[in-house]
């Protein structure tokens, strides 16, 4: 049962990572030069791993679909990055960050992984400051912190509303320094289209040059996937337009386990959907919940009048407003975790109290502006307010913002062990692409932490433990039959896509998939809906493979072909998400099964039956995937019902 060997090191929780590092195998400097590492993706995880491995002397090949590594979607993270520095002296510690993350994840993550994440969090902040990341500072010159959902301490470091951008640029600059030094070779506008397995080990990839359309073979002693999440399965999400789950699907089809696919995060503060033409949803940082109060009208008739345009939110008195998060969760108020805040918004809107189109709630800054002054609020969120105004044409300093939940992040992903290695030897996954640290729900400001932890401080150690056994393995020529066959399979697939010549555009089919996902595999799920979704997705798959229309040919740049290839994979993921959600007969974190809730509408876990990681194994084109279970053993923390009241 090698699949489930999560390779958790021995010893007390706080000693595991130290023990691992003390006893792992290392590669000496002269051997590093002889080893090639392929890293796919240049977001926080990919860029930091590529830069670090390059600095260490490995021969790195780094791939991105964008025109530059700096464009990866990590750049759009707004709010901040968590670390257990305890600079504000408010009681934080490595243990507390670990505990909050485990609890925030609704007890569905591995203890040892999460503790390691909390341990290395402080080094990330040190590293970024040394790179020249301009974090916010106090007048005394020291770093400032703010609070975030799911925590009672202020442990979030930030750079205005552009923290992801600044952290990514730090990693990107370190990466470009290595590119300039020749230790990393950068391949831009290149997409992974297949993973090459030789003798059971990952030994390379096939890529498509998105400018020329040419397929290329690349050898690596190890392959790292840092390709982000699969939120765009829903068509409308806060992900970038190009974000996709294709690398994960390629790994899945080659035998890698896909873990917890149903665990997707719906972010509570996004600009609401307002038309069928919409291509993308915009996130408003969770940090806004520090100073914004969320409410809907307390009276249904007021909500109706607002929807009809007969009443303005500013005309509703305090006594007629329902600050429902403060009402339901007095201890955490507007700072409850994302899953809780999202469901509470849906509950109010479903009950008929929504504003705007009916699927929106207010995020109001008036009391903070009265208390702190407009200047302070502008200093904290100026760029976010400007962005909101440009999109919605409304001034949030004067009238409350309207927000609604949207798909934002996927906690599920490729199964990895403690070393971030998949069940295919030599194939690693880092950042959002793996499933490892966030359980059933990710806390705010933890994605940046995990991406950089994996890339700067975990993978550079653990990958050596694997590569140390490979030092006698010479570079393989890409003329080997495995490479030739993999390229042939890819070529056939693209030709098949182009040969369909049906009647429907890629986007029209993707939108159809997105609606099915949102209706049945979104914020509220139930057995009947999920069964319907599985059936509908199978129909959409058939429609796609018989009726999609892709103009142009496979030579040269062909954006529709790229999109079609990714959509084919999203359809696979959508089906897997629905299947996994159907299997998991409990509510936990972002996965809410309507059949399993408390009398007060809170998520009800079934620890006796579902305290496991769902690992799905691909069984072939027409076969159902097989479910394996990695039991989650909690040695140090007691599984409790989450309580933010």
């Amino acid at each position, binding site marked *: 049962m090698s699949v489930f060997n999560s390779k958790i090191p021995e010893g007390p929780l706080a000693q595991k990572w130290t023990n691992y590092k003390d006893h792992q195998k290392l590669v000496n400097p002269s051997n590093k030069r002889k080893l090639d590492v392929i890293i796919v993706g240049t977001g926080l995880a990919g860029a930091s791993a590529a830069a670090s491995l390059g600095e260490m002397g490995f021969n790195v090949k780094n791939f991105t679909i964008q025109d530059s590594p700096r464009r990866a979607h990590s750049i*759009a993270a707004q709010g901040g990055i968590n670390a257990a520095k305890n600079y504000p002296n408010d009681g934080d510690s490595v243990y507390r960050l670990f505990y909050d993350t485990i609890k925030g994840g609704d007890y569905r993550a591995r203890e040892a992984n999460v503790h390691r994440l909390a341990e290395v969090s402080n080094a990330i902040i040190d590293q970024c400051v*040394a790179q*020249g990341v301009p974090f916010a500072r106090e007048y005394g010159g020291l770093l400032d912190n703010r609070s975030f959902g799911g925590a009672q301490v202020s442990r979030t470091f930030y750079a205005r509303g552009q923290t992801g951008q600044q952290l990514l640029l730090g990693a990107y600059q370190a990466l470009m320094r290595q590119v300039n030094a020749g230790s990393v070779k950068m391949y831009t506008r290149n997409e992974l289209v297949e993973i090459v397995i030789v003798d059971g080990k990952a030994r390379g990839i096939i890529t498509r040059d998105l400018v020329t359309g040419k397929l290329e073979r690349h050898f690596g002693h190890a392959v790292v996937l840092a390709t982000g999440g699969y939120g765009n399965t829903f068509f409308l999400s806060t992900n970038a337009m190009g974000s996709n789950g294709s690398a994960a699907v390629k790994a899945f089809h080659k035998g890698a386990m896909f873990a917890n696919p149903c665990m997707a995060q719906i972010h509570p503060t996004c600009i609401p959907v307002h038309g069928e033409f919409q291509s993308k949803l915009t996130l408003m940082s969770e940090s806004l919940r520090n100073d914004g109060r969320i409410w809907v009208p307390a009276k249904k008739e007021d909500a109706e009048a607002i929807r009809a345009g007969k009443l303005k939110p500013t005309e509703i008195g305090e006594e007629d407003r329902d600050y429902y998060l403060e009402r339901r969760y007095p201890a955490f108020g507007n700072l409850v975790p994302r899953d809780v805040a999202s469901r509470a918004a849906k509950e109010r809107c479903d009950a008929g109290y929504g504003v705007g189109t009916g699927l929106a709630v207010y995020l109001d800054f008036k009391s903070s502006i009265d208390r702190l002054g407009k200047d302070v609020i502008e200093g904290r969120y100026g760029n976010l307010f400007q962005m909101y105004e440009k999109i919605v044409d409304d001034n949030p300093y004067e009238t409350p913002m309207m927000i609604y939940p949207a798909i934002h992040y996927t906690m599920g992903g490729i199964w990895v062990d403690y070393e971030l290695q998949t069940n295919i030897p030599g194939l690693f996954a880092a950042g959002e692409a793996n499933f490892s640290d966030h359980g059933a729900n990710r806390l705010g400001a933890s994605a940046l932490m995990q991406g950089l932890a994996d890339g700067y401080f975990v993978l550079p150690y653990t990958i050596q433990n694997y590569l140390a056994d490979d030092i006698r393995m010479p570079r393989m020529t890409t003329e080997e039959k495995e490479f030739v066959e993999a390229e042939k399979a890819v070529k056939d697939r693209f030709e098949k896509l182009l040969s369909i010549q049906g009647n429907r555009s890629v986007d029209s089919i993707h939108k159809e998939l997105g609606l099915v996902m949102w209706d049945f595999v979104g914020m509220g799920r139930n057995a009947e809906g999920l069964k319907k979704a599985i059936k509908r997705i199978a129909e959409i798959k058939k429609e796609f493979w018989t009726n999609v229309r892709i103009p142009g040919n496979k030579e040269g*740049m062909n954006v529709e072909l790229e999109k079609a290839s990714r959509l084919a994979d999203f359809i696979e993921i959508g089906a897997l998400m629905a299947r996994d959600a159907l299997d998991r007969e409990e509510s936990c974190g972002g996965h809410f099964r309507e059949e399993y809730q408390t009398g007060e509408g809170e998520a009800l876990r079934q620890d006796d039956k579902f305290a496991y990681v769902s690992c799905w194994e691909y069984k072939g084109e027409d076969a159902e995937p097989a479910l394996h279970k990695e039991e989650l053993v909690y040695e140090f923390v007691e599984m409790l019902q989450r309580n933010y009241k």
Partner: protein
Amino acid sequence: MEKTINLTLKVWRQNGPKEKGRFETYQVSNISTDSSFLEMMDILNEQLVNDNQEPIAFDHDCREGICGMCSLYINGRPHGPDGEITTCQLHMRKFKDGETITIEPWRAAAFPIIKDLIVDRTAFDKIIGAGGYVSVNTGGVPDANAIPIARPAAEEAMDAASCIGCGACVAACKNSSAMLFVSAKVSQLALLPQGKVEAKRRAKAMVSKMDELGFGGCTNTGACEVECPKSISIAHISRLNREYLKSRLSE
């Protein structure tokens, strides 16, 4: 309030870097004024696919104004008629019913056209690679609070650091100069103690790389600052010039 408009679009089409380009005219109708400019382009492309024509290639990704990928030259202005935003945040309420909109790629020798509205901006990466970093490896760095940094310096560094590398400054400049882009990075790092150590070397290396890649010189017209979606100030160019001069004087 939402309303809809009809538009005539004159769009630059070019099959490849070496091919000859031309303007093509398209009509779009019933465009919601609440849609973004790129959503309008999506609608046009959907229309083209349905007519079995090849859609227009344009760069875009985050659609939140931060990745720097979108890059359209709209009615003679990089990122179009609205201020302080990128093309993806431009909304159709800025246009009138019946208007003709001209859409072109960035035009600069250092940014060759790849296809239609997509240009190659890898020159920017090469400039960063030449020196746009602090030379520290992963690990072994001091505690983050070991060196206090005066808040005004940190804030000014952040102003400079907010550059998204879109290239609007180059597209706006009559000389196709990349001075605003280069100065933003030089300035950010020169303002911070971590970056000051190699400030001189950095300025020299980045400027000489910029010259080598075919960007023009700066003649202080200030168009870059006006069109920059992140309002990066040309005061950073002054700082770059000072840093550059210091590096030459110390040779």
